[in-house]
């Protein structure tokens, strides 16, 4: 039994940690969020240069190895800095989907550009009424000669405002909830018939609702076999759920650390508030939550790196996301409460960690959804 990182993983952690610590302070982050693009192109190039954008990809695809533990290492450190750059949308989700479904030619054309930092991607899968069920797809792709015509709308398309290309999940056959008949397409973000309604999310990330109105796509831009994209999509969204779980343990550790520091320095009634036993116990409980969340994320990452069945892997991720979800709710709320009024202001970073963990809870299946999924698997 060994829970320590390999030398390579240790180096990866050190390099991300150093970047976050020395170049990603809260004010820098705020400036990036308020910039036009909503992420730093300069940092994105740096990510590429340091090899971080290769982390989600297998060695045969030219990547670092693509293990879930590697991904966890990077995401935990990103969580500490609340890194806003679209690593998740471009590399983990979209890159991951291409890695799973793409032909050699598609990988060649797209993945090297992702790893070099020259291509931004977004995956359009969720719909207004699909909630967290990935098989609920109302957007259609109708065959027309050797092309497809895509119609429908997608919501919460992360990174869509900056994306050069969109991966669109659409139904080529079957009824709305059928598991078969779901296909994935590569669509140029500027293609005729694509329109975006862009926004900034509560956590500062950019996203859009994207509408497809008779968008023509050639059969060569289909990812994988017609009608067979769902399993890959599910596996990738689970990987994303694990990734944000790891991000959350980084963010929660910061929330705990900041709360403890504040309790040691904030004086009321003539003493540091951290001397009150009632508050000490609450911080102890936050610590327990952080440790259990970390443990369950490690469990799931290790499971994803085995050759277990897809059901076993899904169940491990469901457990992790549900348990981390519960931890995030508690740690986030308690960090705010123990800080008092200052933590409900925009000024202090604590509220922003709270917003990010709340967002993570709502992404890729919220706690109740994952609980139900765990029970059914």
């Amino acid at each position, binding site marked *: 039994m060994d829970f320590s990182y390999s030398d390579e993983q240790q180096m990866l952690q050190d390099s991300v940690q150093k970047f976050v610590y020395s170049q990603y302070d809260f004010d820098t982050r705020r400036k990036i969020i308020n910039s036009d693009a909503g992420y730093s192109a300069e940092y994105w190039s740096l990510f590429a240069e340091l090899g971080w954008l290769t982390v989600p990809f297998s060695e045969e695809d030219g990547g670092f190895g693509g293990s879930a533990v590697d991904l966890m290492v990077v995401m935990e450190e990103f969580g500490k800095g609340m890194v806003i750059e679209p690593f998740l949308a471009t590399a983990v989700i979209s890159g991951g989907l291409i890695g799973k479904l793409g032909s050699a030619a598609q990988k060649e054309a797209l993945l090297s550009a992702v790893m070099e930092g020259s291509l931004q991607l977004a995956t359009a899968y969720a719909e207004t009424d699909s909630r967290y069920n990935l098989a609920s797809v109302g957007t259609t792709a109708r065959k027309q000669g050797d092309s497809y015509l895509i119609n429908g709308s997608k919501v919460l398309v992360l990174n869509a405002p900056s994306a050069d290309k969109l991966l669109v999940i659409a139904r080529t056959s079957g009824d709305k909830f059928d598991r078969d008949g779901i296909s994935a397409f590569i669509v140029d973000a500027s293609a005729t018939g694509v329109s975006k309604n862009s926004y900034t999310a509560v956590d500062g990330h950019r996203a859009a*609702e994207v509408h497809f109105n008779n968008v023509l796509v050639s059969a060569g831009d289909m990812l994988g076999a017609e009608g067979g994209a769902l399993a890959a999509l599910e596996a990738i969204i689970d990987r994303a759920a694990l990734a944000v779980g790891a991000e959350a343990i980084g963010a929660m550790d910061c929330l705990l650390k900041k709360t403890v520091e504040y309790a040691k320095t904030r004086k009321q009634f003539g003493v540091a508030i951290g001397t009150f036993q009632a508050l000490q116990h609450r911080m102890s409980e936050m610590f327990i939550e952080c440790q259990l969340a970390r443990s369950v994320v490690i469990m799931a990452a290790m499971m994803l790196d085995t050759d277990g069945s897809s059901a076993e892997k899904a169940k491990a991720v469901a457990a992790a996301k549900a348990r981390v979800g519960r931890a995030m709710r508690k740690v986030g709320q308690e960090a705010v409460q123990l800080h008092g009024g200052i933590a409900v202001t*925009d000024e202090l970073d604590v509220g922003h960690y709270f917003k990010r963990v*709340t967002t993570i809870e709502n992404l890729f299946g919220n706690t109740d959804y994952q609980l139900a999924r765990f029970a059914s698997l």
Partner: protein
Amino acid sequence: MNADFTAEDLKFQKEVQDFLKAEFPQDIKHKVDNGIRLEKDDFVRWQKILYKRGWVAPNWPEEYGGTGWTPTQKYIFAMEMGLYGAMAPVAFGVNMVAPVIYTFGNEEQKKRFLPDILESNVWWCQGYSEPNAGSDLASLKTTATRDGDHYVVNGTKTWTTLGQHADWIFCLVRTDITAKKQEGISFLLIDMKTPGIKVSPIYLLDDEPEVNEVHFDNVRVPVENLIGEENQGWTYAKVLLTHERTNIAQVPNSKLKLRKLRDLAEKTPDGFGGNLLNDPVFSRKLAEVEIQVLALEFAELRTLAAVSVGKAPGPESSILKIVGTEATQFIDELYMEVAGYHSLPHVPAQFAEGFSGERIGTGSLVNSSNVYFNNRKKSIYGGSNEIQKNIISKAVLGL
């Protein structure tokens, strides 16, 4: 034991309902129903309508403009207002400073301030908390030093809700820096137009400038603005706080929110062809908070009944603050859960009057995480819930 309404009570209830239907402005109701931000004018306009009817201040003594209602009538009024979505008058004037003025102020002060509060001609804000005096309010450091016919005020107040609209501020200030901390505090009324006052907005997690810091730099305040006696301000403020804790349960508001939530859950697809209200996990959580609000309502009624036979609301009212705010916050969580990922866009422009662009998300649910973030303040303000628990431990349980 009897919690039924009398025939007269029922008649009164109908009267309130009819009044609200006829008089609560349609445009304001539209805003409330759709979660659109309310402006200062909305509050002023609505209070002036209540004023015409004589219904602004049910808790005031009749001689100053109170309604003379029984506790049951007050309860019915608050409930019907809340269930209809009609705002209660902004608390700082009507419920917070006015009782101090009519209880501890002199005749001159009563004549000068109370009518304008009732008619909403003057907007009041509160100057209690300071950057280093939060839960430990009595450690406040803003000073008022006597200089002839004036006090000279220096210091900083914070968390001043809606202070940007205010004409006047009521402050706790230190008039004796040598006395023990509760004993050197006075209650002072200050015109916000006085030179030396600076208001700076504080943006909360929903990006709205709802609260402010108010800075006092050698602000000269006439001594006739002192309420009661010098160095007795803490006593006055404390009396006010226990009286105020009754409305803090926010039962009518929670009931309205629960009713809407049930409706929204029924309209929200679960992603598998059903709706969320039929989801056993969600419906249990909804039931849990409905039951909590029901228990809270009866706890509040018991407090009201005690008041009606002449008992002052005691430290038990801390229960109402704790449970009331936690219930509201839990309801906010459920709204966010119903919204799912539709709670994530931050689109404040959609909640401003007259927005005409393409909307993102599903109706008002898109604002649900912002509401959740903002309402985390509820367990912090008005004496944090931890302070309320201290009150229960000490004053009720004798620990």
